[in-house]
């Protein structure tokens, strides 16, 4: 029997859901499919931060329990921000829809959802702006690309603005310099006015406000943790490193993200810092009150960001240090470089940072008084101030992921590479259009790195994963180094799914491995406590 004798052809049977829905972008309806969005923040954290509309709710609920006058609140919020932030007004007006940014977002590339094109993401907000804030929109409405603000539009905003990692890759390609991340930040502020936020963006901010760090770790626990790592270092190297905490009058205050003393592999990097500072005899101090480099205020509102940032400077003032050194953190540097000066600056009470070891003046940090550890360490290495044995990293074949904020917000491109090349013999770059300013995001930044959002993270993580897979296949790369605590958490599942076998590492972990210390015993273990130069593979990170 030939298939033509059958009444039904097999392909007919498959016709039922073959075509994608022909959806007009103006249609705001969103299906909240589990795995593709983050859960809401518990009311107690909103109460603590005195934020609007604390209540129990979830994005998959039908009723979001918005305040009665929610529309007024949003319009008022928009009006307020349009007059306060000139950039917001500009970004609303000047996009010519040239499309240069359209295919540059990792979420669009990986998901194939057109509303993840940065131009359309912005259009979700812009269409409402056009409808209600421009003369032509008020008259022509939909014809002029205007959209009425409805509850569905709010839900759509929530879905797509908490689906942007504020990574700014798109802005690199916009001829007008429109920064969609800034538009997302505005949209999130508006959503926050209605009590619409996500756990991982807000809870750490609340904890930070309360205890000084994202995890709510108290000062004595902070101190005990550092002492523990001091012991670990002694076990590995035989050297007991010094551990100054809250030392008044130290030269330098060191601030790093709490991920570094809480979670592997950050902890290995933290030991790397401690060893390095000890070895060069840096006069520095830790502080339990500035025990958080991260600033999740950035992902919520300008006010919150300002408060959290101010804590670091207040502590520097209290301790009377000369300047601040910051650890391997991503968005801390965006806050410091882009906002700190206008928000809380100038920090006149501090001195212009100069390396006490090499005498180098850190010109970039002249006004913020805060130096990135990669710059500090690269400078030490350029001046041959540390003794290194890169062969201790010989089993590692390393590539470097440029974290969005250090690369795009502060141009920190060469320094971490200089450090890596100094401490290991096998270093390989991923393809040019996936690194440096064009780096692809880990897809878990800006509060999106929660487990319930895993499917969306894997979509957005594909462009990075694909480039990683490429160097894994071509050069046997087995380590992915980065200088960001969020990356050190979010890249782990990304690598597991898209390039299984590649292990995530901080840069100073590899420094710790290679650093030859005065009085050290013969090194047999790496920072992870594993035998040095054992081939990877049996590692279960």
């Amino acid at each position: 029997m030939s298939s033509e004798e059958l009444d039904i052809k097999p392909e007919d049977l498959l016709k039922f859901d073959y075509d994608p829905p022909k959806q007009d972008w103006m249609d705001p309806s969103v299906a909240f499919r589990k795995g593709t969005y983050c859960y809401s923040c518990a009311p107690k954290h909103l109460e603590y931060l005195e934020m609007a509309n604390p209540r129990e709710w979830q994005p998959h609920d039908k009723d979001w329990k918005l305040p009665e006058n929610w529309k007024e609140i949003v319009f008022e919020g928009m009006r307020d921000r349009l007059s306060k932030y000139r950039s917001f007004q500009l970004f609303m007006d000047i996009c010519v829809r040239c499309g240069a940014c359209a295919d540059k977002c990792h979420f669009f590339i990986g998901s194939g959802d057109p509303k993840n094109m940065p131009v359309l993401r912005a259009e979700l907000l812009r269409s409402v702006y056009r409808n209600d804030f421009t003369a032509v929109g008020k008259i022509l409405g939909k014809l002029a690309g205007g959209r009425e603000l409805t509850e569905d539009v709010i839900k759509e905003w929530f879905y797509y603005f908490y689906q942007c990692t504020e990574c700014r890759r798109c802005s690199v390609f916009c001829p007008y310099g429109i920064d969609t991340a800034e538009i997302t930040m505005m949209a999130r502020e508006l959503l926050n006015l209605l009590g619409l936020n996500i756990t991982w963006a807000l809870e750490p901010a609340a904890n930070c406000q309360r205890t000084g760090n994202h995890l709510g770790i108290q000062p004595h626990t902070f101190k005990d943790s550092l002492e523990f790592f001091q012991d670990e270092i002694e076990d590995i190297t035989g050297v007991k490193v010094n551990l100054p905490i809250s030392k008044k009058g130290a030269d330098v205050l060191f601030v790093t993200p709490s991920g570094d003393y809480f979670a592997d592999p950050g902890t290995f990097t933290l030991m790397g810092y401690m060893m390095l500072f000890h070895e060069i005899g840096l006069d520095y101090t830790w502080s339990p009150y500035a025990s958080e480099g991260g600033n999740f205020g950035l992902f919520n509102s300008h006010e919150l960001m300002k408060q959290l940032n101010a804590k670091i400077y207040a502590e520097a003032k209290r301790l009377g240090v000369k300047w601040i050194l910051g650890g391997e953190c991503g968005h801390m540097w965006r806050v410091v470089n882009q906002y700190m000066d206008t928000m809380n600056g100038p920090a006149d009470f501090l001195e212009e940072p100069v390396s006490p070891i090499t005498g180098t003046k850190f010109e970039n940090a002249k006004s913020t008084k805060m130096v990135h550890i990669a710059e500090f360490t690269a400078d030490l290495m350029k001046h041959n101030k540390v003794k290194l044995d890169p062969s201790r990293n010989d089993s590692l074949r390393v590539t470097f992921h440029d974290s969005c904020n250090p690369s795009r917000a502060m141009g920190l491109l060469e320094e971490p590479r200089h450090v890596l090349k100094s401490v290991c013999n096998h270093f390989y770059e991923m393809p040019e259009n996936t690194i440096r300013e064009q780096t692809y995001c880990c897809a878990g930044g800006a509060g999106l790195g929660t487990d319930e959002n895993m499917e969306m993270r894997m979509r957005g993580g594909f462009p990075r994963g694909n480039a990683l897979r490429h160097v894994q296949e071509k050069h046997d790369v087995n380590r992915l180094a980065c200088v960001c605590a969020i990356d050190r958490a979010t890249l782990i599942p990304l690598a597991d799914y898209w390039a299984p076998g590649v292990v995530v590492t901080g840069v100073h972990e590899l420094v710790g491995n290679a650093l030859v210390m005065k009085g050290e015993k013969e090194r047999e273990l790496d920072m992870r406590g594993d035998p040095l130069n054992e081939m990877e593979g049996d590692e279960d990170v």
Partner: protein
Amino acid sequence: MLRDLLSRKRARIVEKWFDVILETYPEDTSKFLKKGKDPFANPVRHTILQGVEGVYDALLKEGQSPEALNDFLDKVIRIRAVQDFSPSQALAFVFSLKGVIREVLGKEIRENHLHDQLLLLETRIDALALRAFDVYMGCREEIYELRVSEVKRMREQALRLLERTDRVFQKRKEDEDAPSRDS
């Protein structure tokens, strides 16, 4: 021979098959997936194309190892398993190969009376579909695994933090106790 036809028309068939897959995406997206050739700027296109080419060639080869076939299927399915598709939408592409082959080779198959061979080939495609189902489930399970291990990692870290502080506390106590024992 059907096999010869399939090899001769490989380029046409693979191209059509690939197009059918691209059409499962919204219009703006399929336009993008069609045009950008850079494997790193447009990784979905690149990877899916690699996958379907590999699957097609493996299908024609006698005695192809199942692992190789799975690897090629994995390229396509790993991506579609996390995109906004239901399971049937994600996997329909396997069956659509049948339609594509009939469309491209229909005339020759009729003229050369190759229906028996076509049936055989379609049976192989059905087997491919079953295999695809396994690969799909494997990917979905991985996603759940990743979720679970992330939560576990967090919990373990918190426990380790407690352990660490406890160890430091114990040690401090020992140190404090030690001299009094001596005296």
